């Protein structure tokens, strides 16, 4: 009975002692009852010929039932199996949602014109990946399978030309370019604002005001600042601006949150100026800076996708919007899938950087 001692206590509250050590038995019984009951309810509906009419409430209730089943199953899992159990929940649930979506589409419970099944979205994604659009001279990835051929013919210039036709790389370039261009000065200004009260008082209100502006709304102004308003520069700069403001505000909070005693220790042991920044202020504010970078990455993605929606001839946001306009929802969804995958990948990259730069946090 050692494994279940925690929930014995939880379950046993207000009950008689004699009932206490039957918790495992209870869980097993409940589990069987819940699974059988759920299946029986679906079968009954089907027998009465009502399943189709009540499909959505039935599916909804089944998911609630699933939570109850999962919870009981979780208590029965031995400590050694916890990892597998947790992964099953984390990946199994989204898989189940996709499967439900797929089946609901296949059986006509969904309007597949606007909500195409995952299989069709996957097919659309595949088509996007291998397709080269002759008219606009673009492709999703830049046809990497042609690289050896092109390299043999034209060398690096050819490879570069090939990759520059990629929607994905266009978006990645804008996001990363804007992110770095905004984050570095943003962190530096944040440090100055955190350390110097005068600068802080002068800038805090202004930054807070610009922070809440939707960056897409000031994009036209940013465009006007450049000789080529339709080129890459305004797109990168508007991302950089969003990241800059966020990182300045965030870093300022991080620097102000550093315990004063670390600043005193740094000074007393001879740190001044750059060495103070490098050895005390930056590492002290690092946890908050990374929390900010994570949010800034999301913001950068939102800004670049919306900019590409309205003002671009290339990019993942552009294809997403383009396929919506030409009423090809499969590929529009495929574009959204690429955006999500990109978000996950960039977040992983940031986490990797965080582990490298902050080894003291395990």
């Amino acid at each position, binding site marked *: 009975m050692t494994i279940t001692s925690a929930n014995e206590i939880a379950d046993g509250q207000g009950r008689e002692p004699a009932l206490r050590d039957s918790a495992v038995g209870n869980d097993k019984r409940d589990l069987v009852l819940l699974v059988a009951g759920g299946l029986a309810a679906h079968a009954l509906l089907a027998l009465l010929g009502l399943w189709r009419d009540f499909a959505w409430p039935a599916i909804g209730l089944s998911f609630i039932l699933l939570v109850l089943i999962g919870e009981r199953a979780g208590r029965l899992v031995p400590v050694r199996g916890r990892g597998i159990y947790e992964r099953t929940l984390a990946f199994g649930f989204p898989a189940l949602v996709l499967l439900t979506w797929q089946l609901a589409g296949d059986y006509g419970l969904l309007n597949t014109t606007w909500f195409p099944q995952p299989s069709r979205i996957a097919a659309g994604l595949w088509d996007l990946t291998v397709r080269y659009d002759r008219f606009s001279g673009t492709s999703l990835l830049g046809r990497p399978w042609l690289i050896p051929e092109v390299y043999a013919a034209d060398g690096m210039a050819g490879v570069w030309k090939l990759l520059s036709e990629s929607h994905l790389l266009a978006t990645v370039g804008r996001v990363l370019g804007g992110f770095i261009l905004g984050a570095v000065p943003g962190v530096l200004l944040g440090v100055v604002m955190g350390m110097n009260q005068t600068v802080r008082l002068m800038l805090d209100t202004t930054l807070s005001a610009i922070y809440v502006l939707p960056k897409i709304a000031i994009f036209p102004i940013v465009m006007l600042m450049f000789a080529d308003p339709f080129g890459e520069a305004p797109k990168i700069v508007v991302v950089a601006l969003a990241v800059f403001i966020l990182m300045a505000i965030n870093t300022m909070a991080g620097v102000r949150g550093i315990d004063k005693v670390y600043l*005193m*220790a740094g000074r007393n*042991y001879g740190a001044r100026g750059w060495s103070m920044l490098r050895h005390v202020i930056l590492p002290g504010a690092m946890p908050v800076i990374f929390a900010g970078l994570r949010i800034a990455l999301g913001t950068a993605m939102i800004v670049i996708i919306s900019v590409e929606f309205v003002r671009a001839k290339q990019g993942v946001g552009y294809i997403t919007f383009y396929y919506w306009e030409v009423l090809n929802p499969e590929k529009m969804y495929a574009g959204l899938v690429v955006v999500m995958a990109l978000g996950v990948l960039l977040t992983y990259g940031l986490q990797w950087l965080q582990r490298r730069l902050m080894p*003291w946090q395990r």
Partner: protein
Amino acid sequence: MTSAMPAVAAPKIGARNVSKHYPTVDGVMVALEDFSLDVTEGEFVCIVGPSGCGKSTFLRMVAGLESISQGAISIRPGADAAKPLNSVVFQEYAIFPWKTLADNVAFGLQMRGIGRKERLDTARFWLDRVGLSRFADYYPHQISGGMKQRVSIVRALANDPEVLLMDEPLGALDAQTRVVIQEELLRIWEETRKTVLYITHSLDEAVLLGDRVILMSAQPGRHLATFKIDLPRPRSIATTNLPAFAEYRAAIWEKLSAEVTRAMEARP
């Protein structure tokens, strides 16, 4: 100070009529008033006083980490100009969570531009002195409070300053750890004979460690009394069993208890 004065007479730490005022919304708060103190070279001086009497404030002023409202404080430089004048052991440890223990201990040397190999050798030597060489590559969150304070102490010692300023370094530790580190401190001090200014709220600690004990009054902090402790060196925990130890302790306590009572009655 003119060079005409004989060098022996000049104190290592000289504080002349020092006051500290904090401006607050309801007027000026006097944290320290007209406080003078001379510490000679190689002397271990303990300051005791009710909490809030301005001990930490005074120590930070000596360290140059806080401005002085009135008066003057000087630390006489030694023959070696490269040596730092002072190193502080802070009440809150203040070792950097983002550096390994070795890098923490080597920090002062690093800031003075000493090469990586040499400073890490020094750090390892000092970590070894307090039994922490095994943990050189650990981060502070992986070790206990007592170990952290040891690191904080050897960070100051590795920096080899002219004077060592310690602010209730053992205040947050449990009784056993405290005794162990007190013994370590005594052992190291007998060998190095550094000039030390040591703040504590423990009378036992003050009498055990100090050549002199300075008693301060409750807020605003003033000089109340000085006790010269003529217990034989080298000392150890066994020293606390001497009859003379108990006498010093009782004499200081008599003065201090009157002051604490006065301070508590004065409080609104």
